[in-house]
């Protein structure tokens, strides 16, 4: 198997089955959220759309979520007058059925049921307001940031990534980001991969391009920058690339490239063969026998 064939196999393994339980759960949950928002904001001039990796077609099984944008019309105040009011209004509405974790501009939905408390539903709701009547640009509320609003355009972002010609490399880099625990913000990683692979010296072939991207990150970790295609000057993404993050990117990229030199891509992404649940269950029995735990809880 050539490196590119191996990586294609990994990509197939990371593709969520369109008929599978994971996507079905996600879609059912999506319907629940839409129904809840429609119920809570009846008659509102509100547009709910699917965004994120689902829309960008860069979803991976290892770490996936569904972004739902909930944008209100420019002169609609059903959820509130200000951006912060809208953010809090949507949050309050979602809290009727979910445990809601606030993120910078999104609201993460988790279970509030007793038997699955805090289970992550992999859904982020992004409240916002259209900046004008043409319904293209939106303003998002930014929680805990100096600048409390951000102008962006989701359509432009989605187009930029979906039609970048780098979706395979982006998906593999997202897998790398998840399995190495790097936790670089996904949007930043996607933009970085596109920018790197648009360089004239970027090679052809998935394996070669992946290596090129990693080498670039390793060699330029201290200086590389990315820009939001929807708002290159107004959306400052540099806060996601502070010195600690850059040092981590350099370290992990260096280690990954060493692993590739030593063991090939299999040293990074593991074997292609899926280990069955039964085999993993048998393995975990021996692990807990060797290293038993007996957790407690103080009252």
């Amino acid at each position: 198997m050539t490196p590119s064939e191996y990586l294609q196999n990994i990509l197939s393994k990371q593709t969520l089955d369109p008929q599978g339980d994971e996507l079905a759960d996600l879609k059912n949950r999506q319907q629940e959220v839409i129904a809840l928002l429609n119920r809570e904001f009846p008659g509102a001039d509100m547009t709910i759309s699917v965004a994120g990796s689902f829309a960008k077609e860069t979803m991976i099984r290892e770490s996936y979520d569904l972004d739902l944008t909930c944008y209100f019309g420019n002169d609609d105040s059903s959820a509130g007058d200000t951006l912060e009011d809208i953010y809090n209004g949507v949050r309050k509405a979602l809290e009727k059925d979910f445990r809601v974790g606030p993120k910078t501009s999104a609201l993460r939905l988790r279970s509030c049921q007793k038997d699955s408390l805090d289970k992550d539903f992999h859904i982020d709701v992004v409240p916002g307001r259209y900046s004008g009547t043409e319904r293209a640009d939106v303003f998002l509320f930014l929680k805990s940031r100096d600048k409390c609003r951000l102008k962006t355009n989701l359509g432009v972002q989605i187009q930029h990534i979906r039609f970048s010609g780098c979706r395979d490399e982006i998906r593999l880099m997202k897998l790398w980001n998840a399995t190495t625990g790097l936790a670089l913000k996904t949007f930043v990683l996607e933009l970085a991969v596109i920018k790197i692979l648009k360089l004239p010296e970027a090679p052809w072939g998935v394996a070669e391009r992946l290596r090129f991207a990693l080498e670039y990150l390793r060699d330029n970790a201290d200086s590389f920058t990315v820009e939001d295609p929807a708002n290159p000057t107004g959306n400052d993404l540099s806060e996601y690339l502070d010195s600690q993050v850059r040092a981590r990117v350099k370290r992990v990229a260096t280690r990954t490239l060493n692993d590739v030199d030593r063991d090939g891509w299999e040293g990074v992404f593991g074997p292609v063969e899926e280990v069955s649940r039964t085999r993993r269950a048998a393995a975990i029995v021996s692990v807990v026998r060797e290293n038993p735990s007996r957790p407690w809880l103080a009252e």
Partner: protein
Amino acid sequence: MTPWFERDRHLYSKIVQVVESQYPTLHLSQEGGTAYLRGRLNITAPLLASPVASYDIELEFPSDYPDADPLVRETAGIIPKDADHHFYNDGSACLFLPEARWRQCPARPAIAEFIEGPVKAFFAWHAHLALTGHKPPSGDWRHGIDAILLFYFEELQTRDVRVVRTFLGYMTAKKVRNHWRCYCGSGRPLPQCHMAQVQFLRARIPRARALSFFQALQNAFSCRNGPRPGGQN
């Protein structure tokens, strides 16, 4: 207050070294005077090339580290955060019963001892629950103070609360006296009976911890039985 990692730069650089060499999927960072270790914890098993289970975790180092253990959290929302899964309301995990921690790691463990011991064992426990549908044979402790009494029952191989009370009296005394009768009720002097057990647990359970449970037990006992004549419990 100066953060511990600035007070003790040697310890911090040692942790950096250990993490970088042994835990390539975990990453140290500092945020607002607090140090975190975040990333992916892989539970591996012999003969399996890929991890049996992986969890995204966060270890938050407290300001009095290494006297206190890091707080451990699962950050991807895979495990429900409730009492049955041994998570507090703030999302931190309760890895072990403090009285029984010596079974898993020493006091003031090195970071690798902490991760390889209670942290991995805790997440392997959850992986077992997720993969097999039931808790591992080691089970879990009941919540709250009941578990502490059970712990002493197990250690002393008794079901008699009075034996535990006497034992705790010896655990919490400043010095163990040779003329004391054994807590087990044999009537023999302690050195000729279970002195080793007293010394074993005195060396492993902090006196303050034993004292706190001793007092709780005394209170519960006096509530249940009423005051004894002569003021003795």
